[in-house]
């Protein structure tokens, strides 16, 4: 007789616990109200482990530095900012759970996600599901806003298409006679996607270029000797590599040691972050990009003092120059400050709820030290691209660009509603006439 009672009591207890848990979870998922919080909670996903931590850790350092500065000046809308960092290293599946935890358990007001395109593709749909404003602060995949609408997601920097098209246009302007090309990219989404973008643009603007080698070494490779030997034997006019981090450093070092740079012109769209560890090893006269316009030697930044303050502040604190993920993090915080200011003003000094904050981001213009970035109606940011030829001088102990061309974002970005590859295939050579003249430096 007692058993049914026991079972039902256990069931009742379990039921109560489950209901409580559901209520608690529901509480977490509930949209943030418009009440001014005691702290502005920002969830930041970045690589803290694995090879991409060469980007992720400097970005976290930049975030900490920026938050300190913001809080010293009274926070955002008078509310101090607090960051919750999450490691992207364990992969997209893990990150999806972490995203939910940030929103539901930590009750963050905004999420900054992520470095990896795979992470962004996994997390961005959650921004719609959980109605949480999400700033895509570094990932570059063009697929995000071309394949779906994400009303709560905004990318506060450029993306793959302009980052590839700008160096291609630079190459076509400065070395128009090239006839052969080899590609050596990392064997993962970015390596493959960036090659598809480049090939589509190159075939449209300079048909007939012979691709003599397409090589995609294993991600996180530590040796490119064989690929270098093959390229030495093939002698392509141009070698494209969108590789980054330690792999790009290794590729450049091994290629320089074996004088491959003397036989071919390299195009390295993601070179900037690898220039410091390479130092003087990076040969001069090759095309280098920075995933944006934020080179430390920008020839005419919009706010030179702000750029100097940021670069010097970062250097003093971490004993190295900031690299592009640091600048992207600064752009994300600048956008966050501008959006809150806009939303608070629109609400007559009231604190915005999730929907009102997301509304403020649409069409938002915000400043970076080098330019002004505007978010389009699809959520994509328009960031200029600065490309130049590697050079060495006395100011920096590593290569920086000379003969720089600042490509206006709108010129090299896929129009809203179109797919990048289709748009690149439709390009006509008259785009070359619109390329701005190099800036003497």
């Amino acid at each position: 007789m007692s058993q049914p009672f026991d079972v039902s009591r256990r069931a009742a207890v379990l039921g109560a616990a489950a209901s409580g848990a559901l209520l608690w979870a529901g509480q977490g998922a509930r949209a943030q109200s418009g009440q001014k919080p005691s702290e502005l909670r920002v969830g930041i996903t970045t690589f803290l482990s694995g090879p991409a931590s060469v980007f992720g850790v400097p970005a976290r350092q930049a975030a900490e530095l920026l938050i300190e500065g913001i809080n010293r000046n009274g926070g955002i809308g008078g509310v101090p900012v607090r960051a919750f960092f999450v490691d992207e290293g364990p992969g997209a599946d893990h990150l999806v759970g972490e995203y939910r935890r940030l929103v539901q358990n930590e009750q963050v007001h905004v999420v900054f996600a992520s470095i990896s395109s795979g992470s962004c593709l996994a997390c961005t749909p959650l921004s719609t599901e959980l109605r949480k404003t999400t700033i895509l602060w570094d990932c570059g995949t063009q697929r995000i806003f071309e394949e779906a609408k994400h009303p709560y997601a905004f990318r506060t920097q450029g993306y793959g298409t302009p980052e590839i098209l700008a160096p291609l246009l630079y190459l076509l302007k400065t070395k128009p006679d090239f006839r052969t090309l080899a590609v050596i990219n990392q064997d993962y989404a970015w390596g493959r996607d960036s090659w598809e973008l480049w090939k589509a643009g190159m075939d449209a603007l300079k048909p007939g270029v012979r691709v003599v080698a397409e090589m995609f070494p294993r991600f996180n490779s530590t040796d490119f000797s064989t690929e270098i030997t093959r390229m030495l034997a093939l002698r392509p006019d141009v070698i494209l590599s969108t590789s980054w981090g330690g792999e790009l450093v290794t590729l450049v070092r091994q290629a320089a040691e074996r004088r491959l740079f003397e036989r071919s012109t390299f195009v390295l769209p993601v070179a900037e972050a690898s220039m410091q560890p390479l130092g003087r090893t990076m040969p001069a006269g090759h095309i280098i990009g920075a995933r944006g316009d934020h080179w430390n030697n920008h020839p005419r930044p919009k706010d030179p003092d702000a750029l100097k303050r940021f670069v010097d502040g970062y250097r003093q604190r971490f004993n190295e120059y900031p690299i592009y993920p640091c600048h992207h993090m600064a752009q994300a915080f600048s956008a966050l400050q501008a959006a809150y200011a806009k939303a608070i003003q629109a609400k007559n000094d009231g604190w915005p709820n999730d929907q009102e904050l997301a509304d403020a981001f649409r069409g938002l213009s915000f400043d970076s030290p080098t330019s002004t970035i505007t978010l389009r109606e699809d959520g994509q940011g328009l960031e200029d691209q600065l490309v130049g030829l590697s050079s060495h001088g006395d100011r920096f102990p590593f290569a920086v660009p000379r003969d720089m061309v600042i490509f206006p974002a709108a010129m090299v970005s896929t129009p809203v509603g179109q797919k990048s590859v289709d748009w690149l295939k439709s390009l006509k050579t008259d785009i070359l006439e619109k390329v701005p003249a190099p800036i003497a430096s």
Partner: protein
Amino acid sequence: MGEWFAENGLLLGLAGLDGLSYAALVFMVAVGLNLVFGVLRIVNVAHGSLFAIGAYAAASIGLFFAARGLPPAAGFAALLLGAALVGGLLGPVIERLVLRRVYGQEEVLQLLVTFALFMILEDVQKLVWGVQPVSQDAPLKALGTVEVPFGDDTIPFTVYQLFVLPGVALATLIGLAWFLRRTLTGRVIVAVTTDKEAATAMGIDAAKVTLLTFTFGAALAALGGALASPTTSLVPGIGASTIVLSFAVVATAGLGQIEGAALTSLLIGLGRSAAVYFAPELEVVVPYLIMVAVLLVRPQGLFGVVETRRV
């Protein structure tokens, strides 16, 4: 077929040279792992960390020497010093404090323990050396390059990769074979590898042998890392990519087989290089295709022997 070779013979020659240096590095890491498994019967995931820490240590010592104006030749001493320090210090500590506690335990537990160790050591690397690429190429630059004829052209190769890496790997193979077969300590190690129970019953101190073997294996992993350091850039995660390939070599070679590790490394090195030239899409899978092909024919590995199950 003959026509194909006539057309591509020169490229095959280049691929062979690249394959040799790659095989040398793979062998240096895999042979240590193989040796350790032979004696300890533990699949040591942390072997990749020893490779990475050996590389970082050698690079740091090399940079230290360079900063003090020592000649480039000192860079070679840095490689050996880095390997000896990591093997001699970390090896005994790991064996005594961690591995000794899981001998004879379930394989899953052993794997988990060495994996945990791997994760801890990964964080230690980040703590000590940071996340930005570290490189030190004094030994590479000291030796310069050599021009290899290629038709009417020449292809520059670094002397370090063409001669030093294969040379050290060959010396290690010969030295190790001699040590294991011609010295008392080596024979004791072989005895424990073959039948630990019988060896112990005959008075061999198995605990000492395991300590010695693990330290030796750790030093080989660290030496592999140290030798790789002048040619590459050291970043978080290099240990992980190394260990995966090493496992493929060990499984293909036959567990505990030194010559098998050498032959497998050579097969993988040459196969991978040939793939880069003639079928780049297969480059990543070549080591594993070789492993599958060998294991289908010889499940015990190239040089492995079929063991009778003991009850």
